[in-house]
């Protein structure tokens, strides 16, 4: 019998849990009456996380006036929930930064994910969404299932790459034909295993078919459209050589005008370059 996406994820030992520091940040934030100082204290226990977070909030992604030089100030300026989302983004990059793959350039992979994250945040900003960092994280994690496939794919992964090159198929179709599921299914199962919010699970699981998102369609639509815009401009690479199809309905659901495209692309490329330096080595 064929393995399911859930079994595939559970059979990959190195990804079974998120770094301990993120679990502790989450615990403190979830505790009633916890203070920003307590959150800051937990973040500061991990110097690597602290310095990356400070680099990120001081990048042009945020454009705050004046330098934010402490985690306490970052929390006061950005907000506790938002710092949690940015800490999650930072922890995941750190966790997978050194994964190597003979099939994909991992530097390009992260460039693609960060571009999608920045684009999600911009689209959320144009839509006047409240917590734009939640959209940022959805964008950053949308292709996380691909990493699990790189880690465990073995010979089957080779078959996928050959199929894509020879038959000019896209990755998604080749993954489904080979495994019976795709990287979006694997990503959703991984986020479920990590106990991350339902909106993120759904956005990651439905980022190639946003109509599958029934509970949180906005996050899925934004993630889907953002990845299309990023692939169209060829910012980084997730291993896919061609632009994936886009759902016109998802774009319509966002209620934005395509007159924004020149501005959007200008902001995207500017903020993407600034974020790369802040987020990856």
């Amino acid at each position: 019998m064929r393995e399911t996406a859930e079994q595939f994820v559970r059979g990959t030992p190195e990804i079974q849990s998120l770094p301990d520091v993120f679990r502790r940040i989450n615990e403190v934030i979830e505790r009633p009456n916890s203070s920003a100082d307590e959150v800051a204290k937990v973040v500061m226990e991990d110097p690597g996380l602290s310095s990356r977070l400070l680099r990120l909030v001081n990048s042009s992604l945020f454009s705050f006036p004046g330098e934010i030089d402490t985690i306490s100030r970052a929390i006061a300026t950005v907000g506790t929930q938002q710092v949690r989302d940015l800490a999650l983004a930072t922890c995941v990059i750190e966790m997978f930064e050194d994964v190597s793959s003979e099939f994909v350039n991992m530097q390009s992979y992260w460039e693609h994910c960060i571009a999608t994250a920045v684009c999600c945040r911009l689209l959320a900003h144009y839509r006047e969404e409240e917590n734009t960092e939640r959209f940022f994280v959805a964008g950053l994690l949308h292709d996380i299932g691909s990493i699990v496939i790189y880690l465990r794919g073995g010979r089957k992964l080779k078959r996928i790459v050959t199929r894509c090159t020879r038959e000019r198929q896209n990755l998604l179709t080749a993954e489904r034909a080979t495994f019976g599921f795709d990287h979006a299914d694997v990503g959703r199962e991984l986020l479920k295993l990590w106990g991350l919010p339902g909106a993120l699970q759904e956005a990651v699981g439905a980022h190639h078919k946003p109509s599958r998102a029934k509970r949180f369609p906005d996050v899925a639509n934004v993630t889907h459209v953002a990845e299309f815009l990023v692939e169209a401009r060829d910012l980084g690479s997730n291993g896919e050589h061609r632009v994936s199809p886009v759902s016109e309905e998802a774009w319509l659901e966002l209620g934005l005008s395509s007159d924004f495209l020149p501005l959007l692309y200008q902001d995207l490329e500017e903020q993407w370059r600034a974020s790369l330096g802040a987020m990856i080595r």
Partner: protein
Amino acid sequence: MRVLRTKLAPGMILEVGAVDRDGRMLIGPETVLTDRLIKVIDNAQIPILYVTDESWETHKTCPELPPLPEAQEENLRDRFMHVDLDGPFARAVYDECMNMAREDAVSAAEPTEDGAAREATP
């Protein structure tokens, strides 16, 4: 007609309103541009605007962007082979990418101070 901010001239008529980074409409469609309005657009750093074809022909001060070399255009078309370009959003993004590629090609060909051509945008 899609034009770069730097190519605007007084007398051109906006086809689409000028929208700033925060999504605010600064100048409505069908407005005749004056020096003062061009300054407003400069200050807001709106990179690209749309003016009517007739007003472009009357007031243009520089040639429009040259077409992309055939091989690059073919490459862009190939990358979009799985996208249905009959969809209005997909078509708008494709056209925008084509225009950006043309702008990239122009700036790559511009000589730098030492006389060499610029490297293409990564």
